[in-house]
């Protein structure tokens, strides 16, 4: 799985500026699209980028609807008018590094298939504005295969000075648990055997609890 440290590989489309027809004018609005190719929906932990004269940022997230048993996607606003430059006309923040954590989002960025960054620059001072070095980091997912099964973990959390329960039980005059356990394990083996030898053929009984379903009986 992807580590939280290494960014996800994703396709980042170049910034598109809002325009009407062929005419170029300063609309003050641009869009960057980010796609995650060949990957299932991801849970985003962190997005980092370097600003390049963008005043405010909104993020739309394309979220898979698999949770509600529906196929398809919806667009959700993840971030609304996040200020990158406190004063759009001034330089401050125009070249800063930003890290957006999942807690900064107004909606948890889980199960995301694509992102759209909507960049705004109201000041006419800056003709072009964009974001650079965009990196998306996924949440560290717990790999179920790597988890230790219960029986591998330490038997009982005992300190060294404490006695094992089986020794305590022996002292209190309880029956020998080791012997009982041994025999129970044998029973388990026997049970296992009955499961394994289950027949692959059926006798062809149709009755349920000794009585027949009337619809199954027919005059043939």
């Amino acid at each position, binding site marked *: 799985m992807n580590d939280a440290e290494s960014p996800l590989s994703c396709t980042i489309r170049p910034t598109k500026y809002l325009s009407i027809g062929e005419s170029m004018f300063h609309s003050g609005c641009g869009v960057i699209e980010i796609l995650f190719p060949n990957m299932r929906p991801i849970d985003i932990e962190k997005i980092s980028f370097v600003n390049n004269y963008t005043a405010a940022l909104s993020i739309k997230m394309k979220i898979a609807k698999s949770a509600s048993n529906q196929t398809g996607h919806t667009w959700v606003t993840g971030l609304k008018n996040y200020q990158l430059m406190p004063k759009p006309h001034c330089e401050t923040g125009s070249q800063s590094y930003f890290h957006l954590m999942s807690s900064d989002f107004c909606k948890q960025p889980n199960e995301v298939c694509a992102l759209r960054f909507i960049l705004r620059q109201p000041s006419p001072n800056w003709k072009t504005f964009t974001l650079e070095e965009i990196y998306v980091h996924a949440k560290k997912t717990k790999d179920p295969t790597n988890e230790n*099964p*219960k*029986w591998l973990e330490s*038997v*009982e959390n005992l300190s060294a000075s404490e006695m*094992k*329960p*089986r020794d*305590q*039980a022996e002292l*209190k*005059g*309880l*029956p*020998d*648990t*080791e*012997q*009982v*356990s041994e*025999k*129970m*394990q*044998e*029973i*388990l083996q*026997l*049970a*296992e*055997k*009955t*499961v*394994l*030898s*289950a*027949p*692959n*053929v*059926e*006798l*062809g*009984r149709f009755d349920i609890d000794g009585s027949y379903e009337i619809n199954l009986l027919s005059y043939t």
Partner: protein
Amino acid sequence: MGDRKKSPIEERKQQYKDYLDKTDVTSQVREALLKLIENQPKDPMLFLANYFDNISTSDKSDKITTVHQILQLTHHSQQSFQTNLIVAYDAASLAKNPNSKKASMNRPGLTGSVFEELLATILSNVPKNLHATLLERIGCRASEMVPFGVFRYCITVCYVFVDFVKLCGSIFSVLCGKQSGKVTDKDICEIVISSLKDALDSLQDDNSPCSILEAAYVLRPDKLASSLLSNKSSKTDKSTMNEDDFMKEMIDVFTSKIKVLK
């Protein structure tokens, strides 16, 4: 000259050989040795003794005893038990009376009624009140024909069940410990029964090796001991349980996991 008259030693040899052939001992002994090699019992002499005992009585005995004897040759955990099952099934499904002219008597195949008797013979060492629930689950009806798959399953389950009852008995005697008599603390018994239930529950159908380990983990000595200890500290009143009730409850837990025939 030498050709016409055999030496006295060779003559003696021929005489012995004739006798063995005439009385059919050679083939029978060979058969016995084959069975011995096939089953490889721990105590070969006892096995042979039983084998010959069965042969000498088999003339008088009926089909069920014959089949039972075949099955009895090895323990169900041995590989050769599977071969014996096939032989036994063939023996059991022989026509009842090949010489009879009536068609119904002539048909080969294993009917439910014969099968029921066979199961009862296998379980004859177990008290009847204990194995009733088992037979309810795996018994066949008198009119049904028993296919080999079902035959193998039921017979194996029966032998497993006999072993299970033995194990239950020895667990109970461990639980009794030094106490004299045939009763022990009811709470202890209940803990043992419930932990068996837990273990069998965690034994999933898919039989992955992990589920077996998980089930065995539930039954480890320390777990049993700690549940016994926690119970001991919380309760003071002493009710008791006798062996019969203990066996019944254990068997109920065990048989509830056995697949019902369909």
